[in-house]
C-alpha cells in the first residue's frame, strides 16, 4: 500500500510518499503508527482529541473517509492512501 503526504505533512515526514508494509487493517491503526513514527509535527495536523481532525482529509483510493467511517474504515484492498492536512484555496 502506498501512502502519500501533502503540504505540511511533507514537512513533517520529509517524504512525498512511501510504501507501507506494516499490518494496517484500518485507518486507525495506520494513523496511530504514523503518529508514533513522525511525532507531534505529524499528529498536530491529523489528530484532535483522540479522533481524526475534522479538517484533515484521508482518501482511500480517492474516497474521503469523513462520513464513511473515519478512523474505522477498513484498508483491505486499498492501494493508495492520500493524507492532506487542513487546506483551503479557491
Amino acid at each position, binding site marked *: 500500500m502506498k501512502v*502519500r503526504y501533502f503540504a*505540511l505533512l511533507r514537512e513533517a515526514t520529509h517524504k512525498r510518499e512511501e510504501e507501507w508494509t506494516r499490518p494496517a487493517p484500518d485507518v486507525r491503526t495506520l494513523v496511530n503508527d504514523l503518529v508514533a513514527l513522525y511525532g507531534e509535527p505529524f499528529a498536530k*495536523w491529523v489528530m484532535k482529541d483522540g479522533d481524526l481532525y475534522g479538517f484533515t482529509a484521508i482518501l482511500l*483510493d*480517492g*474516497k*474521503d473517509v469523513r462520513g464513511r467511517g473515519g478512523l474505522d474504515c477498513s484498508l483491505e484492498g486499498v492501494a493508495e492512501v492520500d493524507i492532506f492536512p*487542513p*487546506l483551503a*484555496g479557491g
Partner: protein
Amino acid sequence: MNGWMGKILRVDLGSGKISTERLDPKTARDYLGARGLGTKIMWDEVDPNVDPLSPENKLIFAPGPFSGTFAPSSGRYDVVTKGPLTGTIAASNSGGSFGAELKFAGWDAVILEGKAAKPTWLSIVDDVVELRDASRLWGKDVPETTEALYAEASEDSKVACIGPAGERMVLFASIMNEMQRAAGRTGVGAVMGSKNLKAIVVRGSKGVKVADKDAFVAACGEASRKIKEHPVGGTGLRLYGTNVLVNILNSIGGLPTNNFQTGHFANADMVGGETLAANQLQRPRGCFACIISCGRGTKVTNPKYKGEGEGPEYETAWGFGPDCGIDDLDAVIKANYICNELGLDTISMGGTVACAVEMFDKGIITLEDTEGLDLRSGNAEAMVEAVRLTGIGEGFGKKLALGSYRLASLYGHPEMSMTAKKQEMPAYEPRAVQGIGLNYATNNRGGCHVRGYTISPEVLGVPVKYDKDATEGKPELVAMFQNLTGAIDSSGACLFTTFGIGADDYAAMLTALTGVKYTGDDFVKCGERVWNLERLWNNRSGFTAADDAIPERLTTVPMPTGPSKGAVSHVKEMMPHYYAVRGWDAEGRPTPEKLAELELA
C-alpha cells in the same frame, strides 16, 4: 456617514463632465457597497439590453464599507458593469490597495459613463478629479503604464489600468491594479477599453470614520484571532497559497483535465502548490490589511520562461496546466505573467486555450487554422505563445480573444466550450463535486467558483464536511454560499476570511463601523438581495432557466478515468429544488413574495 464616505463620483467620459453625488443612506444600508452598490446603480441607470461595449454601458469602481479600515483582510473592491463575455451583469472583485485608496480619497463609488474621444486616464486626488490625455500610454502593457503613471502622478498613488488586451477589447480582458492584482473575470477590461479609458490613478488623504471605535477594535480583534487560529486561514494559505488545491482535487478525481475530458491528471503534483513553494516562490504577498497573505511572489529562472511577478493562483495553475495537458510549472507561471502584463483573465484564457487544444487534438482545427501554432495537448511552448498572441491581437490569438464559446462555435463545435453562460468554468469538475456544478449553472456571472464556493464543505470539510457526491441538501448549500458571498463581496472583505469567521462576525464589525445595527441574518440578507437583483437584471436582458446549465458533456458523459470514474453531474435534477429554495418560480424568476421580502418589489 460612518464606514461609508457618503459620496459618489460620476464621470462622463464623452462630455468631460465630472460631478459629485451623495450616497443614499438606505442604499448603503441595504446593498453595503462594492458589488451590491454597483449592481444597484446599474439597475437604476442602465438598460439591461445595452451593448456591453457601447458608450451606453457604465463601468463602476466601488470599494465596500470595510475597505480602508483595519478590518482583517478587507482590501477588496469591485468593478461592476454589463459583461461582454457573458452578457450578464458583471462584477469582478480585486484586491491590493486600490479600493482602500478610493476610500481615502473620499469615494464610495466611481461611475464612468460614455466614451472618451481619445485615450484618457482619470486622476483622482481627494476631491480634485481630472481627465488627462493617455495617448502616449495607449499600447503599453500594464507594468509600463503603471510605472509611467507613478512617475507622472505620485509613487504613493494606486493605479488601475488595462493592458493591450483591454484596448483591443478581448472579451475576457482584465483590469489590473498595482500591476499584479486583477479584476479578472467577465471582461471588465474590455468595457474599460471600449470607453478609451486607459487608467484610473487615485491618491487620498482622508480616513474612514468609525461609529464606535472601541467596539470596532474589539470586533476586528476577535475576527483576526479566529482567522489566525484557524488552520487554513492562519497557516496553510500563507505557506502554500491557493495552488495547494491541485493535489487534493486530483486525488478525488475532480481536477478538470484536457478541457474537462476527465478529472485526473497523472502529473498534477508537478504544477501544485508544494512544488511552487519548493522552487519558484520568493515570498507570500498580501493585500491591504491582510492577515492571510495567500499571494505568491514568484520568480522563474528557466531561460525559456524567465520572469518575475505574482502568481499563480490555483485556478491559473490548473488552467494553463492540467486543463491543457501541461505539467511544466515554469511555463504555467510564464503564461500567468503574460496575462498580468497584457491584461487577461487567466481562467478564461486557460479555458479558451484548453478548448482550442481539444479541437486541435481531434482534428477540428489544424495548423492552417492556428497559423502554425502546434496546439497539441501538453505543448507548453505553444500554450505560452497562444496567450501572448491573444493579448497582442495577432495570428490565431485574434480568434482566441473571443473566448472558448465563440471560438468553438466558429468551427461548429460549441459543445467543446466548457462554459456556463459563455464564461469558462474554473478548476473543479462538476461530475466529481455535485454542489459546485449547481453553483456554476446558476451563477449570475456564468462559470464562477468564488460566488458559491461549496468546495469548502464538499471537499475541504470547512466548516463541516458534506458528501461531495450527494445531491440532497446541495441546493440549500449553494444558495446559502451564494448569499453569504454576495454580502462579503459587497462589504469589501476578502472571501478567504470565511476560513475563520462567519456572518455574525461580519455583522459585529459592520455594526461597530457604521453604527447601523446588523445581525448575522441581516448581513446574509443583504447578499440575498444583491443576488436577486442580479438575477432580475439577467432576466430582463433575456436570460431564462434554459441558461442555467453546464455543458452537456458533464451531465451525460460519465467520467472516463480516475477516482471519480463513472460519475455525472446532476445539475438538471437539482435545479427545481434550487429554484424553490430561492423563492423563484419554475422558470427561475423571483416571485413577487420573494421580491417583497427583499424590498425589491
